């Protein structure tokens, strides 16, 4: 049952080579899964789902038949990254974060990279993630991006590329940790046999990274959530719990004398470090959007004066603008004098006249994305779109070329995935999480997102994607 119908032709499959042989890293897993057989696999899969349901790792769907609570779709066949590949990815990610951090320090500081004309100044200034209010700010320890989730994909030849950087509030790490717990219960025999690098200490790394941001002894740390209705609320409370820190909402906080306090049963208590999971411009009505209902008045000024540390620092969004993304190889070269270890996906900038013409003429072969879109919104996959959709999207691009980039349609790699009671190939990407504290820490593995619809390339959970446990073999 297991391999018989499985086909991985004309594509890079994580488990099978193009000749149909299992790759070395997957040898044991493949043999084990085969010996378990389909029925057992389905059985274990549903018991894993039950466990997730009990743990309440769910999201709510509203639709016909009222409210439905679902677990995040979770596939029990792991995605394996061999250690030699991981070593190079780890290096590449550290290099990238280091360079991006220097870049942020520079553009909110001296602006050397602009003066040297490596990046056009107007691209920075027109980026919606660029905050003028941050000019001249010096965040604690000169670190801007403390937590990063970088999306990686493989091309047809199996080489990893960075698809995008998520430098603001990247989510999904709680799924990595919970998936792992469930997998250990589901396939203990695989964990006994294979040397799978653990991920459970991520919250400790996260906490010590946050502690590093202040000189206060025994600092008060809080995770700031927009609230229980936010789709990532589960993750916010999960991280607060695992770190043993407070989870606060905007209404729990108040700024007095440019210091941040939270309202407790014993009165006000000063907060030293905030891991905020709320967008920059919603953070503070007095500095950014005045209509924000989630923000805390005066918190940005408190941050500017060094009275509270914010992770990630405000203003980092400029570096994950998809237009700026295309300059990252140059950014790495400029600040570190090195070539990028993990390449970008080739990218066309619609703000460039020649690129724009190419994009408009070839939209049927390209993926076109809004520079600040996320979650699979504001994009079009040319080959999958109708003629009309293509034409409509062209109009959007023409109206605001600065806001769009285009990339070739990547044939994302596939991993065998249990669909009902069959094993089929599904496309995946990979989001490792990187913490920048005293050192740069890369969690071994990350979130493998899987496009559950046959042939689909869209892995976002907001678009019906699921996830898999990612194993880095040590």
């Amino acid at each position, binding site marked *: 049952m297991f391999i018989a119908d499985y086909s991985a032709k004309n594509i890079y499959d994580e488990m099978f080579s193009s000749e149909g042989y299992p790759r070395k890293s997957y040898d044991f897993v493949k043999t084990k899964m085969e010996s378990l057989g389909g029925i057992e696999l389905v059985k274990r899969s549903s018991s894993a789902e039950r466990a997730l*349901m*009990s*743990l*309440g790792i769910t999201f709510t769907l509203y639709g016909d038949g009222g409210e439905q609570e679902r677990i995040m779709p979770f596939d029990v066949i792991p995605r394996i990254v061999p250690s030699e590949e991981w070593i190079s990815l780890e290096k590449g990610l550290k290099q990238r974060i280091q360079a991006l951090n220097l870049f942020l320090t520079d553009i909110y500081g001296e602006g050397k990279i602009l003066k040297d004309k490596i990046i056009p100044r107007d691209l920075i200034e027109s980026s919606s993630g660029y905050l003028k209010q941050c000019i001249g700010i010096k965040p604690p320890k000169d670190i801007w991006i403390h937590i990063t989730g970088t999306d990686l994909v493989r091309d047809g030849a199996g080489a990893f590329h960075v698809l995008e950087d998520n430098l603001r509030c990247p989510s999904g790490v709680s799924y990595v940790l919970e998936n792992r717990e469930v997998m250990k219960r589901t396939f203990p025999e695989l964990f006994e046999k294979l040397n799978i690098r653990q991920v459970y200490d991520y919250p400790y790394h996260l906490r010590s990274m946050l502690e590093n941001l202040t000189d206060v002894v025994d600092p008060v740390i809080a*995770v700031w959530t927009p609230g*229980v209705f936010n789709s990532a*609320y*589960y993750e916010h*409370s*999960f991280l*607060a*719990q695992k770190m043993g*820190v*407070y*989870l*606060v*909402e905007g*209404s*729990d906080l108040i700024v007095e004398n440019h210091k941040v306090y*939270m*309202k*407790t*049963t*014993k*009165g006000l208590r000063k907060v030293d470090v905030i891991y905020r999971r709320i967008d920059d411009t919603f953070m503070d009505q007095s500095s950014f959007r005045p209509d924000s209902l989630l923000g805390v008045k005066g918190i940005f000024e408190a941050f500017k004066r060094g009275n509270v540390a914010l992770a990630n620092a405000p203003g980092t969004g400029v570096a994950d603008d998809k237009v700026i993304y295309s300059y990252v190889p140059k950014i790495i070269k400029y600040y570190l004098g090195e070539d990028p270890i993990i390449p970008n996906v080739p990218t066309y900038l619609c703000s460039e006249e020649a690129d724009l013409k190419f994009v408009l003429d070839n939209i049927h072969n390209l993926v076109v994305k809004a520079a600040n879109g996320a979650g699979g919104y504001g994009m079009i996959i040319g080959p999958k779109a109708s003629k009309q959709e293509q034409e409509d999207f062209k109009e959007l691009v023409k109206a605001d070329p600065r806001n769009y980039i285009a990339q070739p349609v990547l044939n994302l790699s596939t991993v065998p995935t249990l669909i009902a009671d069959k094993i089929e190939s599904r496309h995946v990407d990979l989001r490792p999480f990187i913490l920048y504290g005293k050192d740069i820490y890369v969690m071994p593995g990350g979130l493998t997102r899987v496009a559950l619809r046959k042939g689909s390339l869209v892995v976002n959970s907001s678009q019906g994607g699921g996830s898999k446990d990612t194993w880095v073999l040590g």
Partner: protein
Amino acid sequence: MLSRVAESVFWMNRYIERAENYSRFIDVNHQLSLDLNEEVPNQWLPLVHTTGDIELFEKRYSSPSPVNVIRFMTFDEENPNSIFQCLSRARENARTIRENISTSMWEVLNEFYLFVKDYRKVYLENAEAHGDTLSMGLSEFLSTVRKSCQSFYGCSDATISHDEVWNFSLLGRFLERADKTTRILDMKYFILLPSVHDVGSTLDLLQWLSLLKSASAHEMYNQKYKRVDPTDIAEFLILNETFPRSIFFCIQEMQEALEKISGIKEGLPRNLAQDATTVYLNRLRSENIKSIFDKGLHEYLDDIQIELNHIGSKIVERFFTN
């Protein structure tokens, strides 16, 4: 501890306690109805009086039939106090304070909620297909509800630090429990005996017994008293110092929790919530069951509820709003 969190912990526990009490009320009444040979008119309505939701009930249902009352108190989505709604709200509260409680507490509560939700779905589907029915393993369902509440208590007792979160849990739990004990006692007020000659009859006795069972006090009462007597029962449920559902015991627990919350050792000024419980506890100490009956039990129970509301509002003022 965040004020918002304290408030959610408080309510989470109130809702669980409420669900437990409701399940016992219904079950005891159901058992009682099975014991009675002939139909006692309006046996189920007192239950709705007891919960204080009679107006809503009358708006939603045309008759106080067993099926209607049970449905109203277990699964009715429009009744904010039905077991289903209590569980939904307890879980919603737990979700917002997830980082303050243990995973095992959350799991117990979450599984409990899913159980009630699934059972409700089957019940409603069945009711639609076959007409309303009582014979759907009601007793077993209610017993699972009680056991789940108790595993929630046990689990919190054993898996979280007995610090502020814990003490706010106790405040919520005992305030709700005291409230429900007054309502249980008051139930007898709403149960009309067929005639005045029935006072002291088997039926009267059965009703008092079931009232004890509703407070889960049957066995402990029997250890202390020899016969089923209204005065003794009231004394036990109001003034007993060691039975965990008596008013006295509940207030005493609240006083202790409040002391720990405000940290007597730190020499902090006492607060109004503390003062209110202490004053009331001292009053209870000075009372005896005779004076209570002289005043009239029903009136006295009303009085307790006013005191409880007063304590409750002081807690809200002192800790939850700032």
